[in-house]
């Protein structure tokens, strides 16, 4: 049975490469922001005012330096274009204030023309250099921010336990990166349903849903409509996996379109791609883990079933053989049988019929165990389950000495009925094979709750003890009977294990060990 998971090729799985520092041939002159011009104008105005007021005190070359400083600051703060504009403005202002004739933009003296030309050159160079520096700083910051986001995304997604987790983590980051709403839709059986949104409560419009649907159906990204065009406001990306049954399922993530004029659009886009790619990987990981878990569960079920059948055949055949043999003896040899023999044969038939009935009863309880082992876990008081098992055993074997020594036990996650059955089987095993006192004890040992049945017999056959403690569910040695393989099956179904040891007095100590919940406490104890 090959039920490998098929993962749809993901168009977003490109290697992430955060923007490099702008090389020389790169378009490093990103679009200026209006705010930059305003800031530069204010700065220039302030410098002009200062130069005008202080021009008695300041020599002309110091004023030039003042203006150059303003240009440098504007370029460094707001980038190349603002720097250039600032330089032009500075020249105009300087010319206006300091070049003969004053308070005009005319230039009278050639000396001043040279001064201005040098000034222009200096201002332009300053603007260019500072602007470039600014761009580089921005790019480096963007790169650092991108890397930080990327590492946070990886960390967050590594802890995701469900599709919902993946969606929520992806949305949080998409929202931060796109600075707009982000939504996740779950695709189940070809229909899309809203799974989560960031900010919470944001509802996608009909056009968004259409785009998401198209994205999921075609299995490729559906980009948002540009500003002013009708269509979806969000770009949608399908992240789908195929489960074992060949159904495509997964989620569609949508995020707001990035403003094309942003200077940091580059790294944000790249990072969004990474978030999408990693979310896809996380979904794959979850789907694979889910498939592996299902496969493991199936295997355990199969193994348990095989183990049960093996021990069943042994334990059912003996009473049947006795009943059939005794009945046919009575019928075919009745005439020659002495009355005492007849009575004894009838007694044997009765005893074995009862034994058979007990097995069948056990089997019925077991069909559930076989039919999926999906134990219905709830908070269970292990002490109660143990006492119930002891009570039942005392009713079945009134002459057996069965003591229960149970310290106050924490609540565990288990299924009460199965746990009780397993303990009952252990007690029954002791009653049948080890005459003498029997003790059922319960205690916490490290991360496990240990429920043990000790008897006063000669110990368990080594082969059976080894098998009980092994990982295998099948291959119970002959003579293991029905009870112990069932116990082992139940222990495994409840997420625990079985151990077999020799007690101080030489008798067998068979224990069921169940994991304690991470927060031992009776939350919602029933």
């Amino acid at each position, binding site marked *: 049975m090959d039920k490998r998971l098929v993962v749809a090729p993901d168009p977003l799985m490109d290697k992430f490469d955060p923007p490099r520092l702008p090389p020389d041939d790169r378009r490093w002159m990103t679009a200026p922001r209006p705010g930059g011009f305003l800031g530069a104008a204010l700065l220039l105005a302030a410098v002009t005012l200062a130069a005008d007021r202080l021009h008695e005190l300041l020599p002309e070359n110091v004023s030039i330096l003042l203006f150059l400083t303003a240009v440098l600051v504007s370029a460094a703060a707001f980038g190349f274009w603002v720097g250039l504009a600032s330089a032009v403005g500075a020249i105009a202002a300087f010319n206006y204030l300091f070049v003969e004739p004053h308070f005009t933009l005319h230039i009278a003296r050639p000396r001043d023309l040279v001064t201005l030309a040098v000034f222009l050159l200096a201002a332009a160079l300053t603007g260019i250099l500072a602007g470039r520096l600014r761009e580089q700083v921005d790019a480096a910051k963007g790169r650092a921010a991108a890397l930080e986001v990327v590492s946070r995304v990886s960390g967050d997604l590594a802890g995701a336990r469900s599709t919902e987790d993946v969606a929520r983590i992806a949305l949080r980051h998409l929202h931060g990166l796109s600075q707009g709403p982000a939504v996740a839709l779950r695709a189940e059986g070809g229909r899309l349903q809203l799974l989560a949104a960031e900010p919470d409560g944001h509802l996608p419009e009909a056009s968004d849903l259409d785009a998401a649907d198209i994205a999921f159906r075609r299995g490729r990204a559906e980009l948002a409509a540009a500003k002013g065009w009708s269509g979806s406001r969000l770009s949608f990306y399908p992240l789908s996996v195929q489960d074992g049954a060949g159904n495509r399922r997964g989620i569609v993530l949508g995020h707001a379109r990035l403003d094309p004029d942003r200077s940091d659009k580059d790294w944000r886009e790249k990072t969004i791609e990474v978030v999408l790619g990693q979310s896809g990987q996380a979904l794959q990981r979850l789907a694979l883990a889910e498939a592996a878990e299902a496969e493991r569960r199936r295997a355990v079920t199969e193994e348990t079933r095989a183990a049960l059948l093996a021990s069943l055949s042994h334990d059912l055949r003996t009473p049947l053989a006795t009943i059939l043999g005794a009945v046919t003896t009575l019928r075919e040899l009745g005439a020659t049988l002495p009355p005492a*023999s007849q009575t004894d044969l009838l007694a044997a038939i009765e005893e074995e019929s009862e034994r058979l009935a007990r097995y069948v009863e056990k089997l019925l309880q077991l069909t559930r165990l076989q039919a999926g082992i999906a134990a219905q876990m709830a908070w269970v008081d292990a002490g109660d389950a143990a006492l119930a098992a002891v009570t039942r055993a005392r009713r079945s074997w009134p002459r057996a000495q069965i003591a229960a020594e149970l310290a106050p036990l924490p609540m565990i996650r288990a299924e009460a009925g199965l746990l009780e059955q397993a303990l009952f089987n252990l007690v029954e095993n002791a009653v049948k094979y080890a005459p003498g006192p029997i003790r059922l004890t319960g205690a916490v040992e490290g991360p496990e709750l240990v429920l043990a049945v000790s008897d006063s017999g000669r110990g368990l056959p080594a082969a059976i003890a080894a098998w009980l403690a092994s990982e295998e569910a099948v291959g119970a040695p002959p003579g293991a009977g029905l009870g112990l393989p069932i116990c082992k099956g139940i222990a495994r179904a409840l997420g625990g294990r079985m151990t077999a040891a020799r007690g101080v007095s030489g008798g067998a100590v068979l224990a069921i060990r169940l994991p304690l919940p991470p927060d031992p406490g009776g939350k919602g104890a029933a």
Partner: protein
Amino acid sequence: MRERRLILIADDEPQIQRFLGHALVAAGYDTCLAATGTEALAQVAAQEPDLIILDLGLPDMNGKEVIERLRLRSDLPVIVLSAHDQEMEKIMALDLGADDFVAKPFGIGELLARLRASLRPRRAARAEQIRQAGLVIDLAAHQVSRDGEQLRLTPKEFDLLAALAGNAGRVMTHHRLLQLVWGPAHVDDVPYLRVFIGQLRQKLERDPARPELILTEPGIGYRWAPAAEGGQTA
């Protein structure tokens, strides 16, 4: 020579010992009991039973081991009690020389029939004639006739027939038949054997599709129908 045959019941289940004991006594046998393989071997040495009923699921050693050790010392008949999940072990036991098997659960009649067949002295290979169901098998002259009419058999077919009919009522494993007729080099040629059995049935059976003389034991071998004990023969 004892008045009554002594049967050793080697079974670890007290309930089985219980009913077998009553049944065998009522059927005219004496019984002794053993619950382990070791015990069974000791009983064989001490009591010298005429036959062992051996359960293959003894706690201390498997049936194969018991039979191997038994066969070192004697050829006393062994009837194996087996379960369906002991198929391989059963075949091994028969190949090692167990005379027959009964699958659990069984009716007492079946066991007693096997018992009688196994206790009957084996027909010597020189016994001149076997007569059954209208067949006359003349072992010395290598001739077979049905209702007075001569049948033509190849030498190998005749050897196979002699091996089967000479052990009437007992199961003969594929392995043993192949070894007897074709020699130890051919013990695994089961398909070959099936072809010969088919040819024999064509020549001997009244209705080869519903054999009455050469009975199949699926997966194990063949059994020549036991000679008439209650007017089965025509």
